[in-house]
């Protein structure tokens, strides 16, 4: 019995210590990368890490449009590798992973060259990435690198193509935003002061304009709800709704409400609502909606009052 007991202790110790030993694979899901490339395989490490083993292997990367914004998706890129390589590695210097894309189509314009095409997506968090670099024009750029890879796995020299970051931040004379962090159907309601009987116009999904007589956006985007994200739980991935004025917003008292139309089968949704005047916060609050928040119907006046403010 004692032998059996000692044996059990040894087995338990081995089982406890075994997970402490680290092992990993060269490939990666690439989910932590600042970029993602559809059609490529992610590998651990920065694009700059592998030494240049084949100086004669060259590759180019040509984005269709050099401008990017946080969350831009499926941006077409293409390029050519010369005869000394059959794949291209694409990444950003300093990133956690790089991507390999096979180049299998013979390039019709060059002898012994091969083409590749892929789809590039940019992380939603790119604006806070330390990988961004400031160029001479004062613009933030993401240095996209391409290196040819030969049959033996040797890397060629880097070719860098900076991508200019355009902010898609919700700015304006007055901007009211609601964003949340789960694929759920939340709605932004903004009570805008107006010269009507009620004294305000409620801008929301079914009345997108701050114009009392025009429930639709009309020709002017001012004071208009940009879209209804995840409407009826048809997930669009935006998780963001805005009401923005670029001109002169109505003067008076504003009320910002947040409603949970549906949690779409999930159990909670954390949200953050903010109003800013010329990029200066006028009011903000955050919260977490659980099932109790879905008791009210998705109608005008529903939801909780997040905060109130006066403009100007």
């Amino acid at each position, binding site marked *: *019995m004692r032998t059996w007991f000692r044996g*059990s*202790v040894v087995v*338990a110790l081995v*089982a*406890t210590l075994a997970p402490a030993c680290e092992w990993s694979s060269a490939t990666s899901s690439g*989910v*932590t*990368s600042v970029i*993602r490339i559809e059609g490529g395989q992610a590998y651990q490490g920065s694009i700059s890490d592998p030494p240049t083993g084949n100086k004669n292997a060259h590759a180019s990367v040509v984005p269709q449009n050099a401008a990017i914004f946080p*969350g*831009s*998706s*499926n941006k077409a890129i293409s390029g050519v590798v010369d005869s000394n390589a059959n794949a291209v590695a694409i990444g950003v210097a300093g990133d956690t992973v790089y991507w390999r894309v096979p180049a299998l189509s013979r390039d019709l314009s060059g002898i012994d060259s091969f083409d590749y095409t892929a789809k590039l*997506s940019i*992380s*939603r*968090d790119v604006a806070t990435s330390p990988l961004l670099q400031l160029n001479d024009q004062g613009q933030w750029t993401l240095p996209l690198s391409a290196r040819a890879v030969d049959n033996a796995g040797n890397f060629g020299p880097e070719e860098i193509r900076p991508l200019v970051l355009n902010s898609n931040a919700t700015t304006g004379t007055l901007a009211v935003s609601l964003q949340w*962090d789960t*694929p759920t159907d939340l709605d932004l309601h903004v009570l805008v002061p107006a010269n009507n009987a009620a004294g305000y116009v409620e801008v929301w999904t*079914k*009345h*997108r304009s701050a114009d009392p007589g025009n*429930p*639709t956006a009309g*020709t002017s985007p001012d004071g208009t709800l940009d*879209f209804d994200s995840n*409407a009826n739980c048809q*997930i*669009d*991935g*935006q998780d963001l709704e805005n009401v923005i004025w670029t001109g002169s917003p109505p003067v008076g008292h504003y*009320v910002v409400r947040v409603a*949970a*139309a*549906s949690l*779409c089968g999930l*159990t*909670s949704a*954390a949200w*953050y609502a*903010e109003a800013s005047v010329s990029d200066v*916060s*006028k*009011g903000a*609050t955050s*919260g*977490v909606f*659980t*099932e109790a928040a*879905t*008791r*009210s119907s*998705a109608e005008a006046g529903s*939801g*909780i*009052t*997040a*905060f*109130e403010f006066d403009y100007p």
Partner: protein
Amino acid sequence: MLVAIRMSKQAIGLATGIGLLAAFAVPAFAQSAASGRKGKEGKEPQPDPMAEIEKLKADFDQRLADQEAASKQREEAIRKEAAAAVESAREEADSRIAADRNERQADTLRLNKALEDAAQREDARERNAPPSVGAGMPGVSLYGYVQADYQIRQASEDQLDSSGQALNQDRFLIRRARLGATMDRHYGEGRIEFDGNTVNGPAFRLTDVEASVKLPGSGDNTPPVVMGTMGLFRIPFGREVPQDDRYRLFMERSTAARALFPGEADLGARLSGGWHFIRYALAVMNGQPLGSNAFAGLDPNHQKDILGRVGVEQSLDKVDFAAGISGLRGTGFHAGLLASKPTVQWNDSNENNQLSPDEIKGLPGVPGAPSTSFTRLAFGADASLSARFTSLIRTTLAAEFYLASDLDRAVMPADPKGIARRDFRELGYYVALVQEYGRWRLGVRYDYYNPDQDSNKLLDINPVLTDASYSTLAVVAACTAKWGRLLVEYQRNRNHLGIDVKGLPTNLDDNAVLVRGEVSF
């Protein structure tokens, strides 16, 4: 009796004789006296008085003898009559006894016949019965219990919420139906327990599966000095989380316990034991309890939660005392987002059922967002004091305190990597008093939980704290037996889930009355 009768008859005869003597002697004496006077007057011959007396005496003796003879005849007649009655009664008794004997014999025959029939039926049943339950080894035992509830909640409505869930909670439900088996050997222990319930519809799941190796304590009722366990078990944090549901008087755990440790059980490995009055438990667990809102029973990150409790437990003559402190350091998981494809959205803003160009919006696809992890911490302290005043009366006072960071996994799930981009500091506590009187129990508990002590809103750049706390005052009465309990509990609940006329968070009336019938074995 005959002697008494005879003596009384002799006394009557003697009295009668004396009376007769007096009756005859006195007139005779008077007549003699009168004759004497006449003789003296008429000179007639006088009878001899002594002869007269002798004659009277002879008559008296004769009469007395006659009376004695008559008495003897009467006594003889009575004796014969009594003997006849006795004989008659004996014959009647003999007859009755014989009848009873015959009846008993008939009953015996009938019962024997019934017994033989029953034995035959039992033999047939055993021949045709399925195999009976048996343990493969000694030290194995079965247990189980059922908690059937009826609840009335103030927030119930005969409606659906906007997610399609029923708002009515006035209903019967099976809160817990547990069936388990344990194995207890000198160096090993095992347990497996299943739970069925209808809380969110019919469900059946594992709640406790343990495989343990141990170094036993010195006595029968002492905990093992050290015991290593792997499996699915109750989280060793605080007092009420590891407590068996059969032994808790209040219907459910406090709000703080249900928020921080939903489902009470998690998968992992544990080292526990006791020495004298010291108790300890240290565990490494997945960090996703069975009641978590997401990834329950799984582990989305490779880091494990490390937690445990160190305490004391002492039973004196009439006082039991237990106290401890608990700690947790774990890793939470912020789920990333899946990529989406470009879509086109049409919203019939003017509700004219016509497609207008300004009602169409193109939505670009967005890449997914990576998942990240975050650290969560918790500290707890608990104490309980129980005093027995008599064999019937016992009073227990218990309290527990929770202080945590980013640990809420049920009530208001904490995600510092989410949209709030800040830590959530949780605070909770409860104080409970339980009075026992024989089989009766009465308990009062107040519990408080704030899932976000820093809940605030920003008004003109000025942060204003808001209250997101929950509190419950519960009063419970129970009648207990060895095989079960009947409990009635009233809960006065306070929260911030309602919305007032200005749209601000307010209390959602949700007081509740719960009735529970419990049977255990």
